[in-house]
């Protein structure tokens, strides 16, 4: 089994997706009550890596993702992708685009389109390909991802595992610089989750796309990630960064290795402290 080197050694062509979050703050003002979701947060994502953002629910990780994707504005600080400014002073809101595609927590496949139409959506809408061309490419990618049998089904007709996989393919067909995943496997049972993990790793090994993955599941973080960023409770700041030196490609056997256990121990305490704090405050999640 070939072991891949972590892409910090990879050639420049793969170095897309370097995300620099600098001193970003986000203050909500719903009905007059000031909520500081993110305060002076700085974070660097290396290109070609799977970066896991771990923290208790509602701590503001999704706010960061939304800011990067251009769904929200920020109140202060700046965010750059590969050196280009996404948002910052004077331009508080990034423009959404197919260079940073999001896979949503509860899934956002268009229910009124079939899976293949969903996957082909991006290229067609950006006018990069003709419809038939896009459908062909979509079919090809879906078959490689193990979705060959369900291409003509509607999202409502397939299992959530397949739907989530299709959503990831829908994102990857656009060859984005950054793939943003917002707790995509949160609502799944452990068995489906482990299948999904292996599927994601396979896709990652093939494309080496930069991934920004939010989760609260520490084992998932260590199994998938190249690097883990442990975040504090609201307001969101980086508490600890852990490098995951497990070799790639990884499979389930990595879960029982010594290094895995050691990493788990190292990270667990930091996460647990924050979870305890969040529990005590008991506030409703910002979603």
């Amino acid at each position: 089994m070939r072991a891949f080197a972590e892409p910090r050694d990879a050639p420049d062509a793969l170095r897309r997706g370097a995300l620099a979050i600098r001193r970003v703050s986000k203050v909500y003002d719903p009905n007059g009550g000031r909520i500081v979701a993110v305060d002076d947060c700085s974070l660097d994502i290396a290109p070609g890596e799977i970066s896991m953002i771990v923290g208790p629910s509602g701590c503001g990780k999704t706010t960061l993702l939304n800011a990067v994707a251009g769904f929200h504005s920020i109140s202060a600080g700046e965010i750059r992708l590969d050196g280009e400014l996404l948002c910052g002073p004077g331009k508080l809101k990034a423009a959404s685009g197919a260079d940073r595609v999001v896979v949503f927590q509860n899934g956002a496949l268009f229910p009124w389109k079939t899976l293949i139409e969903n996957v082909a959506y991006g290229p067609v809408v950006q006018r990069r390909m003709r419809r038939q061309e896009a459908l062909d490419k979509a079919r090809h990618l879906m078959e490689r991802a193990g979705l060959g049998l369900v291409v003509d089904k509607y999202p409502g007709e397939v299992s959530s595992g397949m739907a989530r996989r299709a959503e990831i393919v829908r994102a990857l067909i656009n060859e984005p610089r950054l793939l943003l995943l917002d707790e995509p496997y949160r609502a799944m049972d452990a068995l489906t989750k482990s299948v999904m993990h292996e599927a994601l790793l396979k896709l990652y090994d093939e494309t080496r796309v930069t991934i920004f993955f939010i989760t609260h599941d520490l084992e998932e973080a260590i199994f998938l990630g190249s690097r883990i960023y442990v975040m504090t409770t609201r307001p969101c700041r980086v508490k600890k960064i852990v490098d995951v030196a497990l070799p790639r490609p990884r499979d389930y056997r990595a879960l029982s290795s010594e290094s895995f256990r050691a990493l788990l121990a190292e990270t667990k305490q930091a996460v647990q402290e924050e979870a305890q704090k969040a529990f005590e405050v008991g506030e409703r999640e910002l979603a």
Partner: protein
Amino acid sequence: MRAFATAAEMFPRRSGTGGAVRRIVAASTEIRVRRGVAALSLFLLFWYVAVSLKGWLGIDVPWVGRLPSPGSVFAAWLGLIGDPGYWQSAYLSFMRVMIGFLAAMLVGIPVGLAAAINRYFYDVFYPSFEILRPIPPLAWVPLSLIFWPTQEMSIASVTFLGAFYTIVINVISGARSIDVRLIRAAQSMGATRWHLFWKVVLPATLPSIVTGAAVGMGITWEVVVAAEMISTGGHAGGGGLGFFIWNSYVGGSLQQIVVGMISIGIAGYLSSAFLRKLGELITPWLRQR
């Protein structure tokens, strides 16, 4: 740190990668009120101009040109405020609405709950209910005029019918969509059937009851006005705002027609708004943070 105030989040121009975002909602209330005022002013202006063009330039604006002018309507309204007959009509219509509506609630809520809870009752009751539903309430007017001894009772029964259907439908759908886990949770804590009904089913159905009431109220007003107009033919003692409007039409006073229309509109709106406010009070748990 620049404060994130309530200024509108502007829609950014398309980026180089071709992306664009949905228009975000957060325009300030100030801007929204200004737009509303502008729209209404334009509306009044259009009305005024359309009516006056005949006198100014001899142009006959089709349809809208034949309306009475906003000024004359306003003047008529001021005049009517002092007229006891006007208030009496309003009172009469309002009473009819109240009676029909309350009767519909008093009968409709228990019937709806019974149909939702008891399978047998539902099976026996619902088909007949459904078959008769497509018949518009007003189609019942002649039949009710034959059946009931007085005109008042005919109007009341038709009013009742209109709201009754809406309330029952909403109650049934509301009661049926109660999360079954709530019921199971209560049962596992030892709730009796009595408890279950009063403490779980009823509160959970309240939002639907409120919705049914608000919609039913609107329908009641429609029916009352219509019934007043229809059963007016010949009878002098009809009364009510519907009758008032019809009378104004027959008497050729266009301004009064419009005043009557607006009055009913206001009355209907206020009653629905009142109901909704009441609904919010009795369902405090629905208030969002």
